[in-house]
């Protein structure tokens, strides 16, 4: 057992999978340049020393290298592709949504696309084009599996599950949760490190996790907002008992875990970093109302960002992104 940050756990998970299976390789921009960064947030730092032929630095060509990763995956390899900021996924959208997601179906099940695509999200003082929470744009694409780890244990376990899965899996990671060090360290981070076992393990895709038990209200969140929601649950103590669930799998949702909690509490708040309209929260809310209409004793509530591009100025960015105070206010509201 050791205590690791998310970057450390991901790096180790990638190395172990590459060790285990020669078909696993990494592909992306600036991921293995000697004297460089190890990817935008140091996840692959120094891995080129151990796997000189399987850490592939690419030109700045997201459509090209992500499409090439899909092609290699079709042939049975297990690429781990990496974009520096998830905002750049838009450049590769065609290859992801039209090819990676659909080839298995269009081929009548004869093609598998065991692709892993890692993408950092979150507002971090960089302005509108390096800040978006891109989860929303992918949950509606049939054929993709999507996970979003909020701690180191999950990051490694989900990564391993993703590499071993035969469908394309997107992993959204949060810049403020990585725990990157040195020149690539972020300010204003949240500690997401955790104990990580020495032995091999996976966290199954498609599962949520109850992070804090409670009886009055269910708070659903993932990535950074999970941490803010846990803090909010503490703020409303002792008057209100909030259950906080790490949704963790955004495609598919783990309705069993979510449903069991709603059965207990009857109230749901969904917390999302990113605009409210058309967000992941909209799909969660509709799904809850379809599945558990009789268990709800209050309308489902969302806490999200306004429908605006992410602003640069830190004061505006902080107003944009939900925080523990706003979540606590929503908890008080729904239980009053």
């Amino acid at each position, binding site marked *: 057992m050791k205590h690791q940050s998310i970057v450390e756990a991901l790096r180790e998970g990638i190395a172990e999978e590459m060790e285990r299976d020669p078909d696993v390789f990494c592909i992306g*921009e*600036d991921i293995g*340049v*000697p*004297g*460089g*960064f190890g990817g935008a947030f140091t996840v692959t730092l120094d891995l080129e020393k151990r796997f000189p032929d399987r850490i592939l*630095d*690419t*030109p*700045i*060509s*997201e*459509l*090209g290298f992500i499409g090439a990763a899909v092609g290699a995956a079709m042939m049975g390899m297990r690429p781990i592709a990496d974009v520096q900021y998830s*905002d*750049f996924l*838009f*450049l590769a959208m065609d290859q992801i949504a039209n090819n990676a997601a659909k080839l298995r179906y269009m081929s009548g099940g004869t093609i598998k696309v065991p692709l892993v695509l890692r993408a950092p999200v979150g507002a*971090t*003082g*960089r*302005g*509108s*084009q*390096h800040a978006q929470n891109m989860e929303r744009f992918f949950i509606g694409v049939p054929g993709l599996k999507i996970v979003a780890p909020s701690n180191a244990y999950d990051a490694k376990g989900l990564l391993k599950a993703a590499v071993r899965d035969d469908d394309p899996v997107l992993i959204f990671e949060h810049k403020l949760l990585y725990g990157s060090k*040195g*020149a690539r360290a972020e*300010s204003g981070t949240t500690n997401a490190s955790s104990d990580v076992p020495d032995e091999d393990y996976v966290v199954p895709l498609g599962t949520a996790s109850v992070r804090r038990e409670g009886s009055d209200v269910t708070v659903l969140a993932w990535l950074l907002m999970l941490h803010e929601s846990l803090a909010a649950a503490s703020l409303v103590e002792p008057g209100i008992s909030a259950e906080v669930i790490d949704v963790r799998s955004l495609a598919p949702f783990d309705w069993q875990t979510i449903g069991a909690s709603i059965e207990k509490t009857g109230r749901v708040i969904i917390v999302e970093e990113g*605009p*409210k*309209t058309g967000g992941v929260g909209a799909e969660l809310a509709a799904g809850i109302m379809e599945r558990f209409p009789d268990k709800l004793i209050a309308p489902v509530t969302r*806490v*999200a*960002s*306004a*429908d*605006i*591009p992410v*602003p*640069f*100025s*830190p*004061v*505006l960015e902080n*107003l*944009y992104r*939900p925080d523990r105070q*706003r979540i606590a206010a929503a908890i008080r509201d729904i239980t009053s």
Partner: protein
Amino acid sequence: MEIELTDSIEVSQTYSKSFLLGLYERMVTCRQFEDRVKLLFLEGTMPGTIHQSQGQEASAVGVCAALNQDDFITSTHRPHAHAIAKGLTTEEMMLELFGKSAGCSKGKGGSMHIGDMSKGMVPAIAIVGGGMPLAAGMALSFKLRQRSQVVACFFGEGATNEGAFHEAVNLAAIWSLPVIFVCENNLYGASTAYSKTTRVPRLSQRAEAYGIRGETVDGNNVVKVYEATRQAAEECRRGEGPVLLELLTYRRVGHSRRDPAHYQDKDEQAFWFGRDPIDLLANGLVSSGDVSEAELRDIDARVAQTIEDAVTVAREAPLPTEADLTTDVFAMELNR
């Protein structure tokens, strides 16, 4: 295609002393602005990240000196020198970097989106390659409305491997649009060397593939850059555009933030650091006999004062408020 990279600039009588001193002053403004911002950033005053252009002043200043006030530029994640060269004030820029509401984009854009349409600079596009199709479209509007304006579209050599480069240059080519595609080849895209991502030795060779004129110029020689751009602009205004200019230059600082640039080759650094664009012009001016060291030092001091004043104004200026969050955008949901 050997390009002569001289270690001095012959200053000819073709240009007036005031014109040349103007170039010098703008380059010094770019350098001092960046050096000051770096300090502010390291002391923790500035949010997010910065991409700086120390060493690349001659390309920004030489290009913009050849444009008219009503011509436009598009820029990149590394936009500060372009902005100063196109006439933005260091005050409106410093205010923006501090996230203040009096900044050139009201604090909503930040460093990576510096711009001012009234001065002919589109907010910088931080998605690599993202500005190129815009430039083609702007030029299309000039052509359809029979205006004589041109667009100078700045991008790095790394951007030429994005599909956007190919599509934008080709569109501009088939319609003979007035775009000067200005490739600042500083030999690295983030940490990745040019030679690892591109097989043609000169990017200007790519022009031939689109049926347009391409030229490689010493990008640290501000006079050469000016002359090449003036010729390209004349061609564009005659309907003989677009033109691809490759300006060979070098970044004297890391790619972003605290990047120590360990991936830069030591001999290469020594060569390029010995060809500083500001020193090249300064030495040329002094050895021509027309300009004294003292005159140059006066300019340096005046610029330093202007920048210090800008910092003072920017520090003291008011921040945006919650009311500013949801202005300047169409939005469906404003109540978060």
